[in-house]
């Protein structure tokens, strides 16, 4: 145990995902040793992010405004929606420069074991958008896991009767992985070679 102010920071850091006690200690002592301005900037960044960031009212990406920068960008094709599990997947797909439509963050994948069904995801919102925004194609870019694949299948069956083309990223992505771990080239190829469901 360290003195209370130090230990308090260590405890908070150790609650972060992927940070163990050892790393938390190292980070806490690093913060203790840097210039006070640097430490303050870090603390401000955390406070401001929590205060200013909210979800895009259209696609549920994270944004500081009513709508995210992608949804506000007039050069992007509103007839195409790429559905992803989490907001973190968007920058990964953006880096491939192969997609010029808009996104839709589902908030996860269907998994009865985890108590997640369509009602726990933003599926109804996606259906509304398909109808309201004259969408022509929905690319389902859920993770290549059993749950991600099943969500894709579910969405295909749900959306096709609305007259929209539903596609899935081409295989080549590591099975059971996260989009996070797919490199840009693989992901770019998966986007170009997507297949209709």
């Amino acid at each position, binding site marked *: 145990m360290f003195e209370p102010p130090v230990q308090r920071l260590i405890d908070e850091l150790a609650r972060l995902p992927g940070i163990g006690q050892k790393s938390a200690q190292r980070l806490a002592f690093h913060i203790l040793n840097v210039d006070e301005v640097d430490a303050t900037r870090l603390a401000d960044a955390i406070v401001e992010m929590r205060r200013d960031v909210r979800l895009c009212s259209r696609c549920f990406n994270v944004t500081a405004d009513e709508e995210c920068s992608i949804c506000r960008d007039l050069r992007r094709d509103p007839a195409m929606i790429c559905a992803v599990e989490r907001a973190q997947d968007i920058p990964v797909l953006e880096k491939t420069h192969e997609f010029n439509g808009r996104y839709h963050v589902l908030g996860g994948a*269907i*998994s*009865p*074991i985890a*108590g997640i*069904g*369509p*009602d726990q995801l933003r599926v109804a919102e996606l259906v509304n958008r398909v109808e309201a925004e004259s969408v022509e194609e929905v690319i389902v870019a859920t993770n290549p896991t*059993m*749950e991600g*694949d*099943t*969500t894709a*299948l*579910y969405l295909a*069956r*749900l959306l096709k009767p609305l007259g929209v083309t539903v596609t899935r990223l081409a295989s080549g992505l590591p099975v059971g992985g996260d989009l996070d771990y797919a490199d840009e080239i693989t992901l770019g190829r998966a986007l170009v070679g997507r297949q209709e469901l």
Partner: protein
Amino acid sequence: MELNWLELNGYRCYANLHFEPAPGVNVLVGNNGTGKTSVLEAIAYLGLLRSFRGIPDESIVSTEAESAVLRGEFSVPSGSVRVEVEIAQDGRRAILLNGKRPKRNRDVLAQVPVVVFHPDDLDVVKRGPSLRRGYLDDLAAQLRPQAAADQAEYDRALRQRNALLRQEGRSADRATLDAWDARVTEAGARVFVHRLRVLDVLDEHLGEAYRLVGASGRLAWEYISNWGAAAADDLAAAEAKLSRALAARRDRDLDQRTTTTGPHRDDPMLVVDGRPARTMASQGEQRTIAVSLRVGAYRVLAQERPTLPILLLDDVFSELDPRRARGVLDLFGGGQVFVTTARDDDVPVDGRRWVVEGGVVR
């Protein structure tokens, strides 16, 4: 295939063990509870990536250790294969094949063929269908690593479908259920077709093994399923049948809140001259059938692989008379064998003797 050396750290009663067995027969002698079966379990783990005792991984970590490490080097025709497994107290594990992380864990399954033979094998013959399904599925996974992946996928799809049925019952969202039906169907048909392939290659070897152990009559499988599966089915036919059966039984599944049809409910029955072995055979016949199952598995692996499997016989000789016992080893090829016994006299075969005592093998 031969095990050149085995190293165990923090594994059950072994704080540090380095064991260099002989190429042929190795007899591990020790009182009960001294850890001789644990040595066999460790060797088998490096081939099967799980305990043949059917217990969760974390319980093989010694209570004093942070993690258990199992390492072994095997010689194969093309050189050597090293398998290393580290299991943490919380059950998480890391696997290395020749010093590198394999792309998929199942790549390891194809490397080290082992056949385990223990007294509980009798249950495969005597008890309900799950152990017989397990026997076929395990052999399928050893022959084709893809089978292990398909089995895992079927398990997961089934658990998801059952979770939906259990939580929602009649009010389950039909579209979500449709999606899981599709997954269960795809994976289930593949699991079934893997079983068919095993039954096909096993058939001849099993019959021969049964004759060799001195039994008369014809030992065969009769595959019973409630979804109309048949030996002539290919993948497409199996998918179509399973899909129809799931649809036909949906009402019942919604009521019972579980999946009542599919390969997980099949009963691969063993029959001798048309009589079900489970109910109609004597204890002696059943024991002979259990031996035949292992001999059959050994011979299938020996035929399909460039190298003989490693044979692990856990305390099976105490149950056999000396004449039978001598005969059993002759049924297997001249590969490497590990035998455990409490009494040296029970094992009437030549081989390197090892005394197992207090976490030491010498």
